[in-house]
């Protein structure tokens, strides 16, 4: 196949799918090491309790048991670190309590690990675990933020007496108050962004292995960023130097953010494998995933929007409570702050914005980034309150948005909340989605639904996200304890084929295809001569991993930078081979050509010359063709778009059916449009899931009510319509591919689109707001609560 069929812009089939679909992927649980043992984690059944005693005697004597460890054994070992420091508005640092590997003295959420049994088989480990006698004294628990903040609430951590982790603000409060004082209308809205369980298809797993002969540790783990785990666990928890710690994240079956973080089980198997002198495998059961994978969202917000008499936005303010759970997960503090507050300008030229975020400890699983991470929360607030404003003003919601969009000629645009948007065209995506969704035919469809006894509603929402995370100096000044560049190593092999080692990590995204297309295009070689390798700290030079829709924008650019070096060196070699001046060498379509002549040398011949340097400028140039690049982005990228959804509500049962969903996105240039569409579909599935189906429920005692698929509603294929997806392109201005990222968009834009449609359908009952998910029960209750005359 010629490169142009597989190059940038081609919808090449995902090459990795053959092994995934034929059951030949290698996931962590597929790996078995010689003489391997198995770990079972004993978890707290209490949301909040003092551990009075732990008796492991019977467990240690049980068949097959090799070792039992408790919090006492980890007392001297550091806790799990938090990667982001947020300061409160009074300048004080956030309260950062220790997050022990195994709970010591106290448990803080259902699922908090208390002890671990290592045995010859998993069943023996589990049997023995039941013989551990733990004497708990239950404490009053805070199952939600309201309970945690109530006067007299029992502190989750003694260091945080009022359960407040930090009290943060962003924006100019005085300017915002002044804007509100001039407003012709102020629209107010209270809303909840419902808590979600990430539910990656592959549960988390980890294998720890220690080699006594070399003193090297290896951790196989389900991670989105193996180098980050090596740094966090090695340097901050166990004190293992990088050169003696290898972290391998092989095929990973979905992450959605939940596999970014460093988890206790990774440290447990790594540490304990040295103690017992044998490899240890731990694989989560699905019910453990529910109570130990970091959850997402869980915000409670009051928002206000000030408008002038023509519907121009004058100011926006919001106050949000953000649930941190029982401990601070790796990136938890940055989600409701720098990934949420900074997005509150949305797609709009609102001149004054202020937001306050209070982060709260509760007796629940830690909360961290989940697909979209902060940006869905910001988008939901804005797009719901704008919709409410349109309804109050009796204005077309599309028109109200159009009137307030940042105009194409205003880019680069400095928002009042720190970000500088480099480019975009929001009017274009709006026009595109109105056409795509057949806005003109809506009234006819509504009448047709009504004839069948159904209420039809139509919702619209726009979104913007900050992706391509992130410029290291910027995030460093905002509290990140790491840089957010990416690394790539391009190794041209002697016969001209290429292995790329990328610091990005694929766990479903299709990098092996997308990145290969970039390499194929740039080097002019067939895609099947390019291999993409990732997920092993001993192979990849370095990497910050995959999250925040950063892989193509940051990881892809690092590959491009390394390819630039390859081509530059190749020109030197080609010049020597063709006895021409280096400045006269051009590289195109896989050939080095002497400009203005028909003299050329193919890429493969240059590669061979680099490794068999018989005719080679050895005095001035090293042999070999192998280059590494690190790329630190200059700015975030800003994908944006507009979505339209139509729903039908059955007024008798409250059932909401999504009838159609149209998405118009601007992701900058597309490398593989088919993969991009797949990413949009997945994001929309999760976004519709949040809007209509998914919610994580704790009762007042902090017991998890939705601990399995019997009670936690995952979106299924028959819950979703066939999506209509379109793209427009404004190329990112600060990376060579002009790409912005596409992984999270659907999950960000869909929730307000769907809820706006449901509210539209219920508007004849006078319903103005519904919290997510809009389940049949909740919709029915809203209809019942409506004035009887309207029913």
């Amino acid at each position: 196949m010629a490169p142009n069929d597989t190059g940038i812009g081609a919808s090449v089939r995902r090459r990795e799918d053959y092994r995934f679909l034929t059951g030949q992927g290698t996931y962590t649980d597929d790996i078995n090491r010689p003489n391997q043992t198995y770990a079972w984690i004993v978890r707290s059944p209490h949301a909040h309790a003092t551990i009075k005693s732990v008796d492991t005697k019977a467990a240690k004597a049980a068949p097959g048991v090799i070792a039992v460890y408790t919090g006492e054994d980890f007392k001297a070992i550091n806790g799990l670190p938090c990667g982001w420091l947020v300061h409160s508005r009074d300048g004080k640092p956030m309260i950062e309590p220790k997050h022990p590997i195994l709970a010591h003295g106290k448990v803080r959420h259902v699922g908090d690990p208390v002890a671990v049994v290592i045995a010859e088989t998993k069943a023996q480990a589990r049997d023995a675990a039941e013989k551990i006698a733990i004497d708990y004294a239950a404490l009053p628990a805070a199952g939600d933020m309201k309970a945690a903040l109530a006067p007299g609430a029992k502190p989750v951590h003694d260091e945080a007496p009022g359960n407040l982790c930090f009290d943060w603000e962003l924006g100019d409060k005085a300017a915002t108050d002044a804007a509100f004082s001039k407003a012709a209308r102020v629209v107010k809205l209270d809303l909840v962004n419902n808590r979600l369980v990430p539910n990656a298809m592959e549960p988390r797993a980890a294998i720890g292995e220690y080699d006594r002969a070399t003193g090297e540790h290896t951790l196989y783990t389900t991670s989105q960023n193996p180098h980050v785990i090596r740094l966090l666990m090695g340097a901050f928890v166990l004190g293992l130097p990088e050169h003696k710690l290898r972290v391998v994240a092989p095929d990973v079956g979905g992450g959605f953010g939940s596999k970014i973080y460093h988890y206790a089980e990774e440290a447990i198997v790594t540490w304990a494998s040295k103690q017992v002198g044998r490899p240890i495998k731990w694989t989560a059961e699905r019910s453990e995933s529910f109570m130990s994978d970091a959850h997402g969202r869980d915000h409670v917000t009051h928002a206000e929007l000030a408008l002038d008499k023509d519907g121009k936005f004058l100011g926006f303010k919001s106050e949000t409570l953000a649930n941190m759970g029982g401990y601070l997960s790796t990136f938890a503090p940055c989600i409701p702050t720098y990934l949420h507050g900074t997005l509150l300008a949305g797609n709009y030229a609102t001149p004054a914005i202020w937001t306050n975020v209070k982060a709260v400890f509760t007796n629940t699983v830690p909360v961290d980034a989940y697909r979209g991470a902060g940006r869905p929360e910001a988008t939901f607030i804005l797009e719901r309150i704008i919709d409410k404003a349109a309804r109050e003003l009796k204005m077309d919601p599309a028109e109200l948005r159009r009137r307030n969009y940042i105009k194409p000629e205003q880019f680069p645009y400095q928002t009042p909340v720190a970000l500088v948007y480099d480019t975009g065209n929001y009017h274009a995506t709006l026009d595109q989605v109105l056409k795509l969704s057949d806005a003109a035919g809506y009234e006819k469809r509504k009448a047709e639904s009504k004839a069948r006894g159904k209420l039809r509603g139509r919702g619209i929402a726009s979104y913007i996200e900050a992706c391509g995370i992130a410029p290291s100096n910027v995030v460093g000044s905002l509290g990140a304890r790491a840089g957010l560049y990416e690394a790539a190593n391009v190794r041209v092999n002697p016969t001209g084929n290429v292995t790329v080692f990328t610091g990005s990590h694929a766990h479903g995204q299709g990098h092996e295809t997308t990145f290969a297309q970039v390499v194929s295009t740039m080097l002019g070689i067939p895609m099947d001569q390019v291999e993409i390798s990732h997920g092993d700290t001993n192979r990849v030079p370095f990497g910050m991993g995959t999250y925040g829709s950063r892989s193509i924008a940051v990881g892809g650019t690092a590959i491009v930078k390394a390819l630039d070096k390859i081509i530059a060196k190749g020109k030197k070699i080609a010049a020597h081979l063709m006895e021409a001046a280096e400045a006269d060498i051009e590289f195109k379509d896989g050939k080095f050509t002497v400009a203005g002549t028909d003299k050329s040398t193919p890429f493969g011949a240059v590669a061979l010359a680099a490794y068999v340097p018989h005719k080679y400028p050895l005095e001035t140039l090293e042999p070999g063709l192998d280059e590494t690049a690190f790329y630190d982005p200059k700015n975030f990228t800003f994908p944006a778009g507009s979505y339209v959804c139509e729903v039908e509500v059955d007024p008798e049962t409250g059932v909401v059916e999504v009838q159609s969903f149209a998405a118009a996105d601007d992701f900058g240039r597309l490398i593989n449009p088919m993969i991009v569409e797949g990413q949009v579909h997945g994001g929309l599935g999760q976004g519709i899931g949040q809007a209509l189906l998914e919610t994580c429920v704790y009762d007042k005692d902090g017991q998890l009510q939705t601990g399995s698929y019997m009670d936690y509603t995952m979106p299924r294929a028959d819950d979703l319509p066939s999506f209509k997806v379109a793209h427009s392109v404004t190329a990112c201005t600060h990376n060579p591919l002009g790409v912005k990222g596409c992984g999270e968009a659907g999950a960000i834009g869909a929730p307000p689109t769907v809820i706006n449609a449901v509210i539209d359908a219920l508007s004849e009952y006078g319903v103005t707001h519904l919290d997510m998910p809009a389940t049949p029960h909740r919709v029915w209750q809203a209809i019942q609560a409506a004035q009887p005359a309207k029913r």
Partner: protein
Amino acid sequence: MYEFAYHRPSSLADAAKLILEAGDNGKLMAGGQTLIPTMKQRLASPGTVVDLGALKDLAGIKVEGNAVAIGATTTHAAVAASKDVQAKIKALAELAEGIGDRQVRHLGTIGGSIANNDPAADYPAAVLGLGATITTNQRKIAADEFFKGLFETALKPGEIITAVGFPVPEKAAYMKFRNPASRYAIVGVFVAKTAGGVRVAVTGAGQGGVFRVPDMEKALAGNFSAKAIEGVKVAATSLNADIHASAEYRAHLIGVMARRAVTAAG
């Protein structure tokens, strides 16, 4: 899963003997679609499992006069696909087609379902709604006598269901409102007009499992139409409430599903 003794007897008599010997610690297994998952989760820990899978005579569908007899280990998929069931009691075939998922339907059985008497299962609504007769290795039990509360039935120790006999109704339909997460019935209503009168049976909603709605049956006896039961309210007091549906919502849905079932029955 804990250790347990496993038996796969080749005769009904042996099965009865083995399960009697196992006492309270024994469990009969037909399709295993409830038992195995609960054992894997360590929520059930029988010392003895007696697998009925080798008793081939227990599976099969026969039309006998004005009734359809379905063997106890007949799978949901077999009932759904049966031309006889489709011809005689279409509502029953449709109900079977709507149970669980494809895997469950190909292993789960009618006998296992009604013996388990899960309050959100579908088959109890059909058995009670059609006034079926349960045949065991010891006797025949009328549907009205069979279901005794949550996960409880009239079955005695050593008693094994062999078949369920359904009278062919004049009209019947089943309407299920699914739990959005589990897709079990939050409310399932089976309505039938039979030679013995109109029957309305509700699953998913009752605190004590499947139950009949006499007020609806009376109203429908005179006028088998959705309109006839518009005014009939079911009290919420004895209905289930959980995070998915309040008792009031379930009470409301019984009305909606019953009316839709009557309309569907034609």
